[in-house]
């Protein structure tokens, strides 16, 4: 079935290319815009290579498609962000593939579908997986490059931070009116069968981050997450650890009444989600050292729609979209600059709360060390 579909898609894409190619020659280009071949566009490192924004928009419209991957609508406001792009650039159709997949799935899709029209154009990817696959990425610097702090980006533009959440505890305030003030509260008997994390920490970065956050709260550090593993072992022994995979639906139904996950997901699954969310869902970032983890934006060097990919990056780093991330509780990488130049949405910032100045994130050595420890200890701790 899939092969047939792909073949069909390829025929369609070829037809579309042929048609738009005709249209392209018919429309007179404005003075500055440049018409790039696919190979040239795949190597474009800034908007100037397209002769400015108009040229980029024209080139992206000509492609007519944009393939994004692993962007769940309830994750960091991606539902609204994608809708916003569709509204702003109605000529470009977004194909959102495998929304619930992992960073490793992004890489696998880029490799498996290389050269096909369905390959992902852009990545929203975790650092650990990205570091192993830098050769898949095309350097590109967005127009607002200077607003991204230097330690948040690769000097050549191969990757750049987009947003981070903070590890947070989300809970149903109707079921737990006393709330969660410190991590050890979760060991209490009222939290029986209540506490879930986002998967297996030897598979999912978000779950590994939950263990790391527990370590920071229990005397451990980013160099030593053993106390975090110990915490989950105690949680399991107390009968409070819930092995199911939390989803927006399980939070809404009350089956997973406490979820340790990124703040933007806890915020996104609560009242902010309207009727699909849990109206009593509260998000707490526990006092003490916070844990964040920036996700990176990057462009596939074999992007089938290279101009649309670059237009998407330009769009993500506009103040409007950076404010959308912020509204979901995801701190965008240009936040500091936006506060300085006044483009931050102050009411949103007041509602979400400013990013703490002292949160930590695992560097790649620490992440590797943590996953080695988890491989050895995790299954036994919660088995």
């Amino acid at each position, binding site marked *: 079935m899939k*092969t047939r579909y792909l073949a069909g898609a390829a025929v369609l894409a070829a037809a579309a290319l042929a048609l738009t190619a005709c249209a392209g020659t018919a429309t007179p280009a404005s003075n500055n815009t440049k018409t790039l071949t696919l190979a040239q566009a795949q190597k474009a490192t800034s908007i100037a290579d397209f002769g400015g924004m108009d040229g980029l928009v024209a080139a992206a419209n000509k492609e007519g498609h944009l393939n994004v991957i692993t962007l769940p609508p309830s994750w960091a406001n991606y539902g609204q962000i994608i809708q916003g792009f569709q509204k702003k650039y109605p000529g470009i159709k977004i194909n959102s593939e495998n929304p619930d*997949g*992992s*960073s*490793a*799935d992004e890489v*696998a899709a880029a490799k498996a579908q290389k050269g096909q029209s369905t390959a992902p154009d852009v990545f929203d990817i*975790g650092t*650990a*997986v990205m570091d*192993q696959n830098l050769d898949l990425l095309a350097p590109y610097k967005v127009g607002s490059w200077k607003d991204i702090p230097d330690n948040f980006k690769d000097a050549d533009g191969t990757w750049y931070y987009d947003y981070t959440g903070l590890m947070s505890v989300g809970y149903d305030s109707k079921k737990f009116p006393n709330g969660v003030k410190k991590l050890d509260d979760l060991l209490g008997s009222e939290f*029986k*069968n209540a506490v*879930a*994390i*986002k*998967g*297996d*920490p*030897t*598979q*999912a*970065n978000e*779950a*590994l981050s939950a263990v790391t956050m527990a370590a920071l709260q229990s005397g451990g550090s980013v160099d030593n997450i053993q106390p975090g593993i110990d915490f989950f072992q105690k949680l399991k022994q107390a*009968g409070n650890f*819930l*092995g*199911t*995979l939390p*989803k927006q*639906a*399980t939070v809404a*139904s*009350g*089956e997973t009444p406490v979820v340790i996950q990124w703040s933007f997901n806890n915020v996104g699954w609560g009242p902010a989600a309207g009727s699909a969310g849990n109206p009593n869902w509260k998000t707490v970032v526990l006092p003490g050292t916070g844990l964040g983890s920036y996700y990176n934006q990057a462009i596939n060097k074999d992007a089938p729609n290279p101009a649309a990919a670059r237009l998407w990056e330009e769009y993500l780093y506009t103040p409007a979209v950076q404010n959308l991330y912020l509204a979901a509780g995801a701190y965008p990488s240009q936040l500091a600059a936006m506060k300085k130049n006044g483009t931050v949405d102050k009411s949103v910032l007041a509602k979400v709360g400013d990013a703490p100045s002292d949160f930590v994130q695992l560097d790649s050595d620490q*992440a*590797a060390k*943590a*996953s*080695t420890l*988890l*491989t050895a200890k995790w*299954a*036994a701790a*919660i*088995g």
Partner: protein
Amino acid sequence: MTSLAQSRGAGVTPRRRGARIGVGWIGVVPFGVYALLFLAIPAVLAVASGFFTQNGTFTLANFDTFADPTTQKDIIGSIGLSAVTAIAGAIAGAIICYALLPMRADGLVRTVVDAASSVFAQFGGVMLAFAFIATMGNTGLLGLIINGLFGDNTYTSPLYTVPGLVPVYLFFQIPLMVLTFMPAMEALKPAWGEAVATLGGTRLTYWWRVGIPVLAPAFFGCAILLFANSFSSFATAAALISQGGLISLDIFRASTSETVIGHANEAGSLALAMVVVMIVLMTAYGALQRRAAKWANR
């Protein structure tokens, strides 16, 4: 009748020989191509990946995963879960088939059971997981009733453990058994029962001497199908138990991990382990079927 006499006993379909084979294979080609493209090639590629590093060099390092107690436990967990749901599903399904046997094949009950089985046998994945969460989860219907009767927090959902998957898997295993075993049941001729009765046999003699020997190969064949069905199930388990415990979940973890980098090809060696388990099972089945054939001829 000559061909029937040549073949080794009643009930074995006469084989077509000679010139007919020359044209007959054309009919098999579409299936052969299909099986090659969608079964053989992907299986070979998946298993072969277990023998290489991600850079494409040959290695046996991916098999180190079998020294890991977690992997060993998960293989046993998968085999155990599949065996329990296959045996329980096969027995329950066979009993349902037996109960349906006296009914008219085109009657209302049979039609409804057939239709419902076709639907439920294919009902799986996250939808099935959520249906069971709504019924048997901590805040599900059953939990609410039990907590209402015996006080809060009495009920702990069994769903989020490997044994908790048994009722969930039976939900699609039993209907699958009904669908696949019913044709074999229907092949039992009433005349055989009458013959046994004429010769002074009881109902028990009939089942022991005729019914069970005739049905045994089909029964075990269906049970193996059920085993494979459970063994390869993934989506339902992944939605209910996020912390591993089954080999299919380990394959998912190895191939998609964001945190343990560089072990993706272990998925290939784990897949090989699954293939080996199925080969052992099919071989045992082959031996059993030959034994059963002798038994039937006795």
